């Protein structure tokens, strides 16, 4: 289990994350939501040690993340950020093979190749594994990066806005795959989302942030309702139930 204790971060005079404490439930999808500048991505970066926290600590199964060896951490927690511009030419398979680096240190064995094959299969990329990344569309590229993270075979997968720049079809595809990762493989997924309806339909738990502070943390149905959302977004968000899904209809809302 990942525990976040009193995490804070400032850039210059601006406090971006302030004293956030929460537990991330294992084998579930947890979505971080909140307005722009709420500190969602910063929080995720600190959990995944891309960024050092000013104060507070992150515990992975009771041990301090900062004190863990970086390659053993890489076998347990994977992080994928939203911007992945590469200036090197890689095929899809090359990229996914990088996911095995924590285990193979660059020399892939039989088992590593098997994991790579499986990860490609999982993201429906087997047919295009020899294509170069710069030949792919945004959605395919995103799938290739997620496939790398799957090949990494970690218990925890953290994703920073994986739906950014994707159309509806690809967004749904990716969310379904994340669901499968949790339901079939028992992974724990933490994800920063902008689209509140994707958060509502696909996640088990929701963590809402505002101005760097934690405002809500609970099962999805407790957060996706007008009163709670008003607190997070400062706007009236009517929630309608459609086929068992709670959908926020905020497009015509009065502030």
């Amino acid at each position, binding site marked *: 289990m990942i525990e976040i204790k009193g995490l804070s971060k400032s850039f210059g005079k601006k406090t971006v994350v302030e004293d956030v404490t929460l537990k991330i439930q294992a084998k579930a999808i947890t979505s971080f939501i909140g307005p722009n500048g709420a500190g969602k991505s910063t929080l995720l970066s600190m959990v995944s040690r891309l960024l050092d926290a000013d104060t507070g600590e992150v515990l992975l199964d009771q041990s301090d993340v900062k004190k863990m060896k970086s390659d053993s951490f*890489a*076998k347990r927690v994977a*992080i994928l950020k939203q911007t992945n511009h590469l200036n090197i030419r890689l095929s899809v398979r090359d990229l996914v093979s990088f996911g095995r680096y924590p285990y193979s240190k*660059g020399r892939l064995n039989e088992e590593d190749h098997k994991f790579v094959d499986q990860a490609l299969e999982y993201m429906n990329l087997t047919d295009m594994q020899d294509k170069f990344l710069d030949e792919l569309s945004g959605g395919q590229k995103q799938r290739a990066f997620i496939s790398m993270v799957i090949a990494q075979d970690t218990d925890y997968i953290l994703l920073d806005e994986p739906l950014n720049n994707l159309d509806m079809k690809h967004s749904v595809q990716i969310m379904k795959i994340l669901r499968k990762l949790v339901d079939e493989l028992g992974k724990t997924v933490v994800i920063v989302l902008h689209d509140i309806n994707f958060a509502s339909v696909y996640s088990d738990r929701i963590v809402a942030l505002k101005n760097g502070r934690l405002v809500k943390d609970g099962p999805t149905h407790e957060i996706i309702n007008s009163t709670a959302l008003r607190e997070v977004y400062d706007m009236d968000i009517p929630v309608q139930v459609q086929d068992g899904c709670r959908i926020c209809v905020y497009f015509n809302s009065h502030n």
Partner: protein
Amino acid sequence: MRKNSTKLIILAVIAIICMLLFAFYNIQGGFSYAFPKRLERLFAMVITGTAIAYATVAFQTVTHNRLLTPSVMGIDSMYEIVQTIIYFALGSSSIFVVSRYLNFGVSIIAMVLFALILYRFLFRADKHPIFLLLLAGMIIGTLLGSLVTFMQVIIDPVEYESLQARLFASFMNVKTELLFISAGIVILAFLYGTRILHKLDVMSLGRDNAINLGINYDKMVLRILILSSILIAVATALVGPITFLGLIVSNLAYQYFATYKHWVLIVGASLISIIALVGGQFLVLHVFHLTTTISVIINFIGGLYFIYLLLKESRKAG
């Protein structure tokens, strides 16, 4: 497309032909005198070539920038400054000039220190566009260059002659006594350098992805920057500044090999580097009959190539 291993073999064959030509072509004035001299120069060129190739490729990977090299950022000018200051302040008969070891040591320490200070600036500025960094590098370079010129015009003309000889890269008067210590440092650096080739592959995916895959990124960046400045400093102190060599060979290697694998890129860049140095020196000796020096040729071709790369990049950006 040819396979990369075939390409490497082709380059290796060309490099060996260049070396054989250089060692045996038109040997005059007694084999037993000329041959060891030629071998010495050859040895110096191989050390310099591989050191510059490794340093440049590794540097460009950690800075994610294929136009910057330690030399373009001004390590070379630091060498000129150190030498000029020594001549200016102490004169050509001082111990710092006469003792090659002392001069070598002082130059290397100054260059590595300068590089580290520069990198601090570079890292703080890593959010800024590349042109700002290049501009900053050029401005610092120009400032230091003017200082050097200023000192050079007021020192004694005889001293100036002797200083000038040091500031041009030359394989004709390789400092033999420095050859082995340089080789020792370069080999030590490569012992570490070859162990981190896979790490360099991962680091070319960018900071976030590299950390995700378990690389201790910031520590590795610092180590690699120190490693590449040591290599460049040794090469420069051994033969003098060859500013654009690293830039040419690294970019030719990227173009020719089109791979992310650093062992291919670095071996390839080293071979190209050896071909450029040995082949170039061969031309200087037997075609230009010493009317020019290798650093002039390489800086001329390299400068043109640099402009070409800049134009290509800016067109891509626009």
